């Protein structure tokens, strides 16, 4: 073997693909992360659709009400909780610092993380929808849903990622872990995932619908269960959160 110098950076696309593949494999190898992103959403879907644990109201079948909420939960678990925890520990272990010395640029790293999150979400969505269909899910949607659902998921992902990186880039890894899990549980309760926001008092309800979780679950439910074409209020709400979250992350994220 010769060490004779022959340096050169690989093309950006190859570096991003390598890093994204690496991050996806690392995530799938991690049991806790997998529980968070897949097992919990599927368990909620099955448990609440098979048994009448909560009265949803609004004339939906249980599975028709639950499926959009569980998709929203899956997005939050991957883009927010899982990403915050993983990035927090990468920062703590010096992984981000070490990557800074490789030809992969920061932009490349962020691109790779985005690709990873979207790939995992696609997998989650496919599995959740297949299970939901098997449980009798019959979406009530117009053709525009093919565009509007991905748009909602994308905006929700951007908002969640911004706040995930804000947490991970400012707090200690343990504090990030605790905060990300706590927020996940709270959003599970008040995010319109399995408990309908219509059950909350009117004042609280309009406030909860302005949170990213409420906006995403309500928007998805509007499109997939109510046949709405374009839930403008939810889309605008998510877009605002996305801009705020990413701007805060850019401003306050510390790499080491």
């Amino acid at each position, binding site marked *: 073997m010769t*060490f004779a*110098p022959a340096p050169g950076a690989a093309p950006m696309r190859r570096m991003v693909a390598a890093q994204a593949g690496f991050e996806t*494999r690392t995530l799938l190898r991690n049991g806790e992360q997998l529980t968070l992103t897949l097992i919990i959403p599927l368990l909620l879907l099955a448990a609440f659709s098979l048994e009448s644990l909560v009265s949803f109201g609004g004339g939906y079948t249980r599975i028709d009400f639950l499926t959009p909420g569980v998709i929203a939960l899956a997005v939050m678990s991957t883009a927010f909780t899982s990403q915050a925890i993983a990035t927090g520990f990468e920062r703590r272990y010096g992984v981000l610092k070490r990557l800074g*010395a*490789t030809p992969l640029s920061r932009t490349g790293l962020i691109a790779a993380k985005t690709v990873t999150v979207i790939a995992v979400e696609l997998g989650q969505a496919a599995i959740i929808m297949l299970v939901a269909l098997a449980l009798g899910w019959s979406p009530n949607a117009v053709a525009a849903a093919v565009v509007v659902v991905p748009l909602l998921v994308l905006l929700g992902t951007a908002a969640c990622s911004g706040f995930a990186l804000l947490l991970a880039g400012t707090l200690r890894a343990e504090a990030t872990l605790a905060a990300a899990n706590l927020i996940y549980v709270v959003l599970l309760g008040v995010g319109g995932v399995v408990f309908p926001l219509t059950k909350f008092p009117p004042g609280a309800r309009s406030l909860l619908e302005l949170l990213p979780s409420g906006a995403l679950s309500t928007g998805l439910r509007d499109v997939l269960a109510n046949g709405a074409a374009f839930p403008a209020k939810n889309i605008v709400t998510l877009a605002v959160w996305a801009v705020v979250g990413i701007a805060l992350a850019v401003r306050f*994220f*510390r*790499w*080491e």
Partner: protein
Amino acid sequence: MTGGARGGGQDRRLACVSTGKDPETRTNPTAPAVQIDGLVKRYGSTAAVDGLTLTAPRGAVTAILGPNGAGKTTTIEICEGYRRPGEGTVRVLGMDPVRDARALRPRVGVMLQSGGIPPSVPAADYLKLLSRFHTNPLDPAQLLDLVGLAASARTPYKRLSGGQQQRLSLAAAVIGRPELVFLDEPTAGMDPQARHATWDLIRALKADGVSVILTTHFMDEAELLSDHVVIIDAGRVVADGSPVTLTGSAGQLRFRAEPGLDTDSLLSALPADSAAKESPAGHYLIEVPGGTVEPALLAAVTAWCAERAVLPSSLQIESRTLEDVFLELTGRELRS
């Protein structure tokens, strides 16, 4: 890594966003590996680096030595582009480590003092990932074998021993076939076998034309490996040269005998520029600064002993080691 990461991380390696000029045009193939001029880096009111000037030649192994807190890691991290210099200039392969980061990253290999590798990832997977960032990487499996980790290829980083983790970091630093590598305490925590294997690898790097900058606390390592030694203390260079120039030609003669012999009378029997002392009790040291121990000196010492009916034992003639020089320059008191 405290203190340096203020102001939203602006103190870090930045992507070189168009300077209007292709960085390649600034490449100078004859520039030194590292050239530092009047570098100052302050954290609050304390100066971690305080007017440091050094040149590390191309194709050579340069060892940076210094007590804890001397400013070694700060200096290296400025060269790696992790921190911005406060004052002074730093050139790596003739380029600015912050402004030209994008052009430098593929050409420079980095081994951090610790960590940087995700704990759950198998050794082979990590090397394979880094190899994908380069155009002509070394073969990850061969490299793993070379650093003695072939049997641990599937072992997660966190389950490797300290020395194995260091060897994986070292492999990661060289996988992209860089022109220059920075190794921050490469053999810390290694057993003797691993240290020797690491030394062999560093020698192989040099033989193949790679410039190496390393920091170490092991004086024997610096003496054995390096062409050029820089000793720094309190953020400044206190000595700079090849190991041979630094240790000089000063000769030493040591012997043991009963404690309390009159060293002044011994001194009067020796050449004028010699020094003699007893420290600790019963251990005698005779130094000949700028010279060597001549046969006549040895005869004078033994004659002096014979006159006093003293039998010297463990009599040794040696030259000064790098460790002697280091302790002379940086003192013997413990550092934090």
